[in-house]
């Protein structure tokens, strides 16, 4: 009796998983076609010429770069140095030391010769008290806010309050920006005359690259399989997911690691909210605000500008990161659940949010179920073995082959990795994805769902070596 019930369960669950995966595969295939057409159109375009005129200050608009930092002593100096070297006519860098308990502030004071200054802070968004404002003697456009600990969202809101310019850019304290990334990410915003209110660039993994004095000198690949898999995962997420969604203004994520926003809209949307995924949460609110005000506003992703960030190298760190990301995703989606299938919010309510609910959020749960069904079915005899093989084949298509396609798409168009051996490694590691990396991350993301249900809260930072140390 129990065995029969178990078989029936496997049969039903297996078919649900199978149908789900086929639908998702088709959706990804659609995104792939959209991305391919766009990348193909621009892939031979000169890397620099379209942006050259933006170096003239009268064409560009000034930007405030916000760098929230909590216990980032290992990498903060390099990150700030990379920001001071970017090519952009007018900008200020505001580092927000969110009550770090390590030597983040001391490192900054020492390296950049900071001195206390008096600056009136415009109270536009709620944030914990700013204890002191510092300005660098050597770089007058570098400011450091020392504030009470309040979390990343609170730190960003404090930064927005202190910022002077109409555009804000948020960058993680552990990231390094390509010198021209800024010009590239700003160009569509400037050209659109206010139609584009947020834009995000690609984030790549810095582990394995050679970085000197806050600048990427040579792009390389880490030797650790765990990091290589994350590199592939980022390529896939950015080139297949975001680009495809961005082309139809369906984007709900502008990575916190590197994104630019038009400040008045951010303030009107209420700034950053205290959730684990504050970057996504803000983007959803911006879309919501635009729809409620009935204004045609766009949020876009640009594949070329690259921000390099440090990826976790150990299973423990990666697990913590993925749990936090997924918890943030669920929190945001839950907060805006009234928008789901709500025609008032147009394509965001009818397409984007369903995508994030059913593919991004529920994906790992279904995937995990798929792995369980495969394993058990293999022990249950003929018909089940066939079904297990069918499911496994679809999983390979869904995981490994799609990732391999992403690697090839990158090589066909962007070509960020100069060495042939890196390309070979990326391709073959992508093919192994279904057999170890995907089940692992699916499990961690499921843990994130459990965390969200149990309402666990923390900054969730990982141990840093410092990408540019």
């Amino acid at each position, binding site marked *: 009796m129990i065995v029969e019930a178990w078989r029936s369960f496997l049969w039903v669950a297996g078919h649900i998983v199978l149908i789900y995966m086929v639908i998702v595969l088709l959706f990804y295939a659609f995104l792939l076609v959209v991305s391919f057409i766009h990348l193909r159109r621009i892939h031979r375009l000169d890397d620099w010429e379209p942006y050259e005129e933006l170096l003239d200050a009268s064409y560009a608009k000034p930007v405030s770069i916000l760098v929230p930092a909590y216990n980032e002593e290992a990498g903060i100096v390099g990150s700030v140095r990379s920001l001071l070297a970017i090519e952009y006519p007018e900008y200020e860098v505001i580092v927000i030391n969110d009550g770090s308990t390590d030597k983040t502030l001391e490192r900054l004071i020492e390296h950049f010769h900071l001195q206390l200054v008096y600056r009136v802070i415009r109270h536009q968004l709620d944030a914990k008290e700013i204890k002191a404002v510092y300005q660098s003697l050597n770089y007058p456009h570098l400011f450091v806010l020392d504030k009470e600990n309040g979390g990343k969202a609170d730190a960003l809101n404090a930064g927005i309050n202190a910022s002077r310019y109409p555009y804000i850019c948020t960058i993680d304290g552990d990231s390094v920006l390509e010198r021209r990334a800024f010009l590239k990410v700003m160009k569509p915003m400037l050209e659109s005359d206010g139609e584009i209110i947020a834009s995000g660039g690609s984030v790549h993994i810095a582990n394995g690259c050679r970085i000197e004095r806050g600048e990427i000198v040579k792009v390389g690949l880490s030797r650790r399989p765990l990091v290589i898999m994350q590199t592939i995962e980022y390529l896939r997420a950015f080139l297949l997911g975001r680009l495809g969604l961005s082309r139809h203004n369906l984007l709900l994520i502008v990575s916190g690691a590197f994104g630019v926003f038009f400040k008045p809209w951010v303030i009107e949307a209420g700034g950053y909210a205290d959730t684990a995924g504050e970057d996504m949460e803000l983007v959803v609110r911006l879309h919501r605000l635009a729809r409620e005000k009935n204004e045609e506003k766009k949020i876009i992703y640009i594949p070329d500008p690259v921000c390099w960030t440090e990826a976790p190298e150990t299973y423990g760190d990666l697990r913590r990161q993925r749990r936090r990301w997924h918890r943030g995703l669920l929190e945001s989606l839950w907060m805006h659940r009234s928008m789901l299938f709500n025609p008032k919010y147009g394509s965001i309510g009818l397409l984007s949010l369903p995508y994030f609910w059913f593919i991004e959020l529920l994906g790992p749960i279904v995937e995990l179920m798929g792995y369980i069904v495969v394993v058990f079915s293999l022990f249950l005899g003929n018909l089940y073995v066939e079904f297990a093989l069918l499911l496994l084949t679809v999983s390979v298509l869904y995981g490994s082959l799609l990732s391999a396609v992403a690697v090839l798409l990158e090589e066909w168009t962007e070509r960020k990795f100069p060495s*042939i051996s890196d390309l*070979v490694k990326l391709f073959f590691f992508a093919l192994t994805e279904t057999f170890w990396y995907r089940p692992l991350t699916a499990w961690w993301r499921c843990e994130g769902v459990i965390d969200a249900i149990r309402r666990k809260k923390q900054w969730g930072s990982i141990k840093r070596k410092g990408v540019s140390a």
Partner: protein
Amino acid sequence: MMALLVVFTAAIALFAVLIVLFLYLVVRKWRENRRQARLRVYKERHRLWLLRYLLGEEEQMLLPASPLEREAMMELLDHFASLLNGEQVQERIRTLAEMHFQGWLHRRLSSRHWSERMNALFLIEDLQVKAMLPEMERLYRSKRVTKGEAAKLLAIFAQFDYSPVIAYVLEPKYKLTEFSYRVIFGHMSERLLRQVEQRFDELTRAGKCVFVDMIGIRRREERSFLLELLASDESELRVRALKAMAEIGMPLEAERLKQHLCSSHWQERLMAARLAGKCREERLLPLLYERLSDRSFVVRSEAAAAIARLPGGRTALRAAARTASDRYARDMARQWLGGGE
């Protein structure tokens, strides 16, 4: 069983396609890396020679013998065009480009790939290949020209002082954004700008705003034109005119300035305060002092900055920091005094 067979076959087929694609990309990468290495070698070998030729120290010019050499030479020329100034050098670059690359540019401009046409336009612009004007005109008039190309073409026409650009700007093929207008007007000669000014009313709203901005950016002496705009019904044009006057440092009498300092639009008060700071007249102090308590933060900040620039301004700010009844005014004054006073 059937489903398994279908999916399995599909997966194998896709896998095979991916492997073929992968091999192709590996070979392409290998060839591209090799080509880049050869390109680097050629460039290194001829860089100095070309530089000396452009500077007039070398009479004999090397002729590119293969497509690779031509590409290397183009890259070198493009590089030098951005580094070297001087009419004679630019003239030599242009002559070389016209002599060796015209056919290549022509083929690229007729390409069906958008990115190739754009790259050709960038090169024409950098190397100032004016001989390509008829072909660019043809591209602009063609049906396939895209929004991005049209904007770039207009910018190049403006740079080449090509008169028909006026008509194109007044009736553009695609709606031009403020940014595009800025680039186009930014490249125009004084002669072309005068022609646009004469037909100012025919411009779109974005075009008008940018044209006024351009007066400030280019520091053009357009006093009567700007004063006329100050009387405009459109607040945006008044704001831009005040901004341009502040850029140029064109004084405005206190009575008229007061009118704008008390405007209901904060942007107008902001620009009026900026202009007041540039006028450096002590009798503007009381007007600006009032604005230290403005309901807009940016106006308060600008007013404080303006006061700091006026004669006797720092004394006024010190007084405000101590005695102003409004907390915002006190804070702002303190910030502009540097916090120490």
